[in-house]
């Protein structure tokens, strides 16, 4: 637990002082969403009907952007080797890094989502569900993304490779997040979709952490 907190604090400190990845993700998200009304025309009905999909897809693409740096700097400066030979379990340390990644990239996305939802004229009754869906989906994005990041950590120019590896795995998250919001708009209960999102998150937590750990050990060989 001590190690978990220590690494979490370290990564957050580094992120705050360099503030590159988090800001990049956030600005990409905002700019992408702002571009859609310009491209699709200002018709409020069109925007409202497209809003759930636009918000989710933009969030997903924004999340991809930050993945390359997740393990890259630790791999290149030798920190990862130290983590791997530390007597504490590498999986805990990996989980701490993923948590820090979510806090610096996923959390800001959730926080700006309501403003962007207004911008796209998303009906107000769907807002709560949208926030819940984002809160359940973004941790899964970080977890699944970590697997892609760890598999490509030794490769040069890995950002394209990560997208190809990870985007297909994001599809279930995307489907259930969008359908939860759509369900509210069609006056159904969003509960089953949200529960499925939660299930993906719950399954990804151990599975992705372990897979990432194994992939990183492989990368260090």
């Amino acid at each position, binding site marked *: *637990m*001590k*190690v978990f907190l*220590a*690494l979490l604090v*370290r990564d957050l*400190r*580094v992120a705050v*002082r*360099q503030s590159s990845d988090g800001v990049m993700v956030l600005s990409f998200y905002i700019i992408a969403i702002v571009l859609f009304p310009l491209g699709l025309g200002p018709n409020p009905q069109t925007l409202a009907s497209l809003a759930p999909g636009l918000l989710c897809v933009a969030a997903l693409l924004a999340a991809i952007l930050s993945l390359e740096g997740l393990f890259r*700097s630790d791999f*290149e*400066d*030798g*920190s990862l*080797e*130290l*983590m*791997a*030979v*530390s*007597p*504490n379990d590498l999986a805990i*340390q990996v989980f701490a890094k993923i948590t820090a990644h979510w806090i610096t990239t996923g959390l800001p996305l959730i926080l700006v989502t309501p403003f962007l939802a207004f911008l796209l004229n998303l009906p107000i009754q769907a807002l709560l569900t949208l926030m819940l869906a984002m809160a359940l989906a973004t941790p899964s994005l970080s977890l699944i993304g970590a697997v892609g990041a760890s598999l490509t950590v030794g490769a040069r120019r890995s950002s394209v490779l990560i997208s190809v590896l990870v985007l297909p795995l994001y599809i279930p998250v995307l489907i259930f997040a969008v359908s939860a919001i759509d369900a509210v708009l069609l006056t159904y209960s969003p509960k089953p979709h949200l529960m499925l999102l939660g299930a993906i998150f719950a399954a990804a937590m151990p599975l992705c952490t372990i897979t990432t750990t194994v992939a990183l050990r492989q990368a*260090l*060989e």
Partner: protein
Amino acid sequence: MTDYFQARNVSCNRGGRCIFKGLSFSIQNGDALILRGPNGSGKSSLLRMMAGLTTPVAGELVWNKKSIAQETFFHRNRIHYLGHFNAVKPALTVGENLAIWQKLRSNGLSVRQEEKKALERALIAFDILHLADLPARLLSSGESRRLALARLLVNDALLWLLDEPANGLDDSSRCALEEIVSQHQMAGGMVVISLHGPTKLKNTHTLNLTSNANLK
């Protein structure tokens, strides 16, 4: 009780190429094993293997008759590994960098006060105490190396694995390093160290790794 760290006919392949094979040695408390050899002769590969980062393709590394592959947790607890890279985060201060490594290796039992003292002692030993509050991005390469070396003193470990530790160090830091390694030996620790150039260390065994051109 004496501890033994041995290699039995260890071989190493990297990318299908044989780096060395049939390597054996044995060291015990107070010993220093010096790895010598030209570039590419497998010094780093051997050290990484000793750290448990890679596994030998043949043979085994043994600690007190037990293969290190079978007790990775205990093995990681007794080693300090210093690789080519300093693992210094430029955005953190010198003190923060060192504290992270300390926590990374802590077993959760140590007292906070003692940890603080150990940190300070390590900073003094490598003469970087005055830099403690500086962001590490402002350090010169020699100073970052000293920061990486200071890690050896913040936690106890029996076996130090040092991969060309003197890289980028000035003469006085080199002397300080040798002094600290000797003290570690005196306290019953073991050191495996890859070096170029002369050394004043005592109780040394030298392992000459030849160029791998003749191994097929």
